[in-house]
């Protein structure tokens, strides 16, 4: 069964005719070209498909596209010109926070989301902010260092 919905992705309205069973991640990756959104488990456990829906971090493999009708979806592609995101990306590069890179877009989304709320978060706050996203390469330490540095001086 198909249904016409409007997804606002990265600031642009997209009217899309979707099957009601289609997941948000599939629409983002396959129809709208947001390939920074990665799939690692399909069961909501690894978190590397994280995007923001109305400003809230969610796993896009667990959400149906239909549930996002009329809502604002933000992926890394939509934040590439954002100064706070650039700061965070620079910090990730400088601190060797991306090894294989597969979790990196989701880590950046969670970090950017945290940076909006806290300009100098504690280790514990950072760990909680990224706790839903698995990274198998880094052991998280260089990511945590990056977030400390990337949050400094952010505008809230």
């Amino acid at each position, binding site marked *: 069964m198909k249904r016409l919905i409007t997804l606002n992705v990265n600031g642009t309205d997209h009217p899309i005719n979707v099957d009601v069973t289609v997941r948000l991640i599939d629409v983002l*990756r396959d129809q709208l070209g947001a*390939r*920074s959104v*990665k*799939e*690692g*488990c*399909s*069961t*909501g*456990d*690894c978190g*590397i498909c994280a995007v923001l829906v109305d400003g809230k971090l969610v796993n896009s493999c667990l959400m149906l596209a239909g549930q996002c009708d009329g809502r604002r979806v933000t*992926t*890394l*592609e939509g934040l*590439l010109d954002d*100064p706070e995101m*650039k*700061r965070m*990306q*620079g*910090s*990730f*590069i*400088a*601190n*060797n926070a*991306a*090894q*294989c*890179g*597969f*979790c*990196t*877009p989701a880590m*950046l989304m969670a970090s950017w989301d945290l940076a909006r709320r806290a300009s100098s978060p504690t280790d514990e706050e*950072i*760990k*909680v902010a*990224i*706790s*839903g*996203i*698995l*990274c*198998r*390469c*880094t*052991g*998280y*330490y*260089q*990511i*945590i260092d990056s977030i400390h*540095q990337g949050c400094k*001086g952010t505008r809230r």
Partner: protein
Amino acid sequence: MSEQVSELLDSLRAKAERGDLLYIGESVVRVDSLEKVLGSPVYTADLIPKGTVYAKLFHSSVPHGIIKRMELGQARSCPGVLGILTPKDIPGLNESSAVLPDRQLYADPVVRSTGDILGAVVAETYPAASDAAARIKVDYDPLPAIFDPLDALKPDAIRIHQKGNIARQMKIRKGDVEEGFSRSDVILERTYRTQFQDAVPLEPEVGLAIPEDGGVRVIGSMQSPHHTQAAVAKVLKLPPEKVHVIQAVTGGAFGPKSDETPFDVCSTAALAAVKYRRPVYCGLDREDSMVMHTKRHPFVITHKTGVTSDGMLVADESRLVGDTGAYASLGVFVIVRATFHTVGAYEIPNVKADSFLVYTDNTYSGSLRGFGGPQAIFAIESQMEELARKLGMDPLEFRLRNMLVPGKKSATSAVMDGSCGLPQCVEKVVASSNYREKAARYRNQNGNLRRGLGIALLMHGNSLGPEGNDYGAVHIEVLSDGTISVGSGLTEYGTGAMSGIMQVASSVLGVPLSRFKLERPDTSKHRESGPTVASRVVVIGGNASKQAAEKLRGRILPLAAELLKTDDKRVTMVDGMAFDRRKPSAKVEWDTIVAEAYRRGVGLKEEGFFMAPPAPWDQEVGQGTPYVQYTWGALIVEVELDMSTGYYTLVGAHAAYDVGKAVNPNGVLGQIYGGTVQGLGYAMMEELLHKDGAVVNPNLGDYYIPTSMDIPREFKAFIVEVPGPLGPFGAKIIAEPPIVLPGAAVRNAVLNASGVSVDDLPVTSEKVLMGMKLRQAPRTH
């Protein structure tokens, strides 16, 4: 920093949009960082063209049996299905095996594990292929199955393969253990067990095949593209040059992507692409990946160790049994590495070891970071702890008395040379953890929350050793715009190793890394360079890179000398500029030299090739020098344990590794942190469970890996540099070693906090609690 980085990112993005390879300044060396933080579409699944169809593998539901009949009709008539691939669709050999030819691509007619692949459904969409695959019914004649490796060794055991259940056997003989035991004051015999661990690269195994002039182009996530090419060509009965394999950016690997699963997905995609004349994507979901790919071998290891009352090791006899599951895969080399490391980083005058790699009907085992090291070191470091306790000695003092230092001999009687940096590693972690003061304090604890320290020491033979010819080729070409393009059959899959070998060339040439670009490994362009395994890229590939760069330097410097009107012995290149050493004001830029070379037709393309010296290992005698150099390390872990529940948390980790020369210190630290945390997962929580041969927890909801909440609150990592004889500038390997020690370090810390010895990994709170309850329970016998 922010403004600068912001500008830098803008310029780099512009570059990226033009299709240039991305790179950021000198302080950050990885050439592939930018594409990763931009979320660029560089992984296999990001490259799927329009019109692609999807292949879904389906696997056995019984651990051992003979396929009687496959009912495919219902699946075939599902909407969107193009067809179903079975062994009948294979024009070439039905084989997919990395070492011994004991495994088929699609099992036919015998299945030996529930991970055995039977075929693939090809459909217009992935959900359609998946739905159809669920409708396939297979009838089997069941055969008796074996799940415990010790059962497989029994004389009356059924044979899983025709040649029997032992895939490989090995031994070490040094001195006379019986004589050693007769001189020992204390003898301890104890058995340790380890579990299946899943590598969990966040990107599962995926392959994309596109029909291409008389053959097929294959793009996939893998460690060794040339091996994949050979495997696919064999299945499709094509000449290798008609199978054009490109390694896409790979989202983590850790070992299994050097084994058979990349062959399986790429061969399936290629078969379907040729059959249906469509691009085909064969990507495993997490569950299929965890069922179908190789895991870390469970081991049963028994040590009998003799020691004098003053704490000197005299003799050790060990028996190692590794469960390779249904197929040998890389297990034939895992058992070798495990055996060489059976007494760890200690000198023992009399050593006897016998090891067996055995088949069972569990899903198969193969490569996983550490490659036999984590199992062997868990056993021997647990044994050292138990011996120290039996002797009433401090576990650190006991280790210091017996550990390998320059001049001492390993289990195979290899004499440790001056490149053994173990003492320096121990010194670092002992000081950092404040071990002596804390260990004394923690001996008398009474409260409910108790602390404990655990130590483990590492020796890790570098590169392949006797596992095969240890070579690598790297080519470097200077393009007309001055860009230095580096290519190899060796691959990058996350560690930053390829940036490391470019850094080597960069330092030889005196040109900053920002002028370098890394070519995507491509079998039509790059020479076969052996497997990308064993953390050998920087050591072996680094030497090849150094050689190629030196040859280029030999062409560049005379040209520069001419331009500077001086003698080429007086010329040096620094930061992309050639100087006359005696007249530093006279300089000429890299681009000018390159332009001059192009004007004169001086070729600026060189290849470097390096082969490690052979490892003289006598397998008949069980003695020799299997490795040219070793990585050394020490780890101290501190835990806090709740005596009422057995629950414990990691307070601190102190790690030091002798890497010879840290080519990229930030990258080395990344390996120490990442490998240690993956090892802590192995120590504390990770266990892929089989029940009657079926994987019980093939998903990340039931198979836990460490999250950010699980890591030690404090982590101090130290780089020790005692140059080795093998790697460029003295470099030793570092990606694998840090995963080796956490198993024993955590186990020993938990023991020192609670008094409970957990001899089978992982060290769960349940086991600790059970141990405490058993100790309290009144003896009934």
